[in-house]
């Protein structure tokens, strides 16, 4: 954990900036294309998977983007992050935040209790998903 300390400090500022960007100008397509929404969250009783504070592979890959585990959590909890309920996927939540010029997706279970996956997405994928009804804003 100590090794991640400097990275955390270095990037906290970046997150604050990107949060503002997302909240004001970023993610425009997602905001503008959002249809009239009446979110229907389907809460699944997902089978309990082993939980770890962070798995090594996740740490390594996220750090390739300059994201620490702490920052991944910050993205999820940030009110500036775009949160999309995935109707095609049992109500899992895609949390979208711009980091370093890329849109980072962190997917959690419907209750937001664990991180299921993470990756990079393009804006048009989000807007298309909203347009076709797969995603609705939370």
């Amino acid at each position, binding site marked *: 954990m100590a090794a991640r300390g400097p990275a955390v400090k270095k990037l906290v500022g970046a997150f604050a900036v990107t949060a503002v960007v997302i909240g004001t100008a970023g993610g425009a397509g997602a905001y503008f294309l959002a249809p009239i929404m009446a979110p229907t969250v389907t809460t699944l009783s*997902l*089978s309990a*998977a*082993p*939980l*770890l*504070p*962070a*798995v090594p*592979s*996740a740490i390594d*890959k*996220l750090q*390739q*983007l300059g994201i620490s*585990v*702490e920052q*991944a*959590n910050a993205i*999820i*909890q940030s009110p500036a992050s775009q949160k999309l309920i*995935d109707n*095609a*996927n049992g109500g*899992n939540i895609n949390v979208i935040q711009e980091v370093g010029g890329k849109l980072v997706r962190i*997917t*959690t279970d419907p209750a*937001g*209790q*664990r*991180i*299921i*996956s*993470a*990756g*990079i*997405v*393009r804006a048009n*994928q*989000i807007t*298309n*998903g909203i347009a*076709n009804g*797969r995603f609705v804003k939370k």
Partner: protein
Amino acid sequence: MIPFSSDLEMQKIPELTQEFFEHVLYDEEPLFTSDEATIWDVSMTTAEELIRRISQYYKKPVSVADLAQPLWKLIRQLNEGSDRSESIS
């Protein structure tokens, strides 16, 4: 701190996973995929398109129900009986 779900099964099939990402999810950039993740947790592509890509590359029929299983199971299923199966531990 929100925990990451385990990816032990995914870590057992890195080559097969890489191949799947390269040939099916080539327009995605997954960074972390846990064992409970389905293809819907790593792809924003439509079911029809995913089925088309998978069938074209793996030469096997897949259904929407197949896509709903954890990704590591789907990848193993797609590689069963193929030359790639020797990569499955």
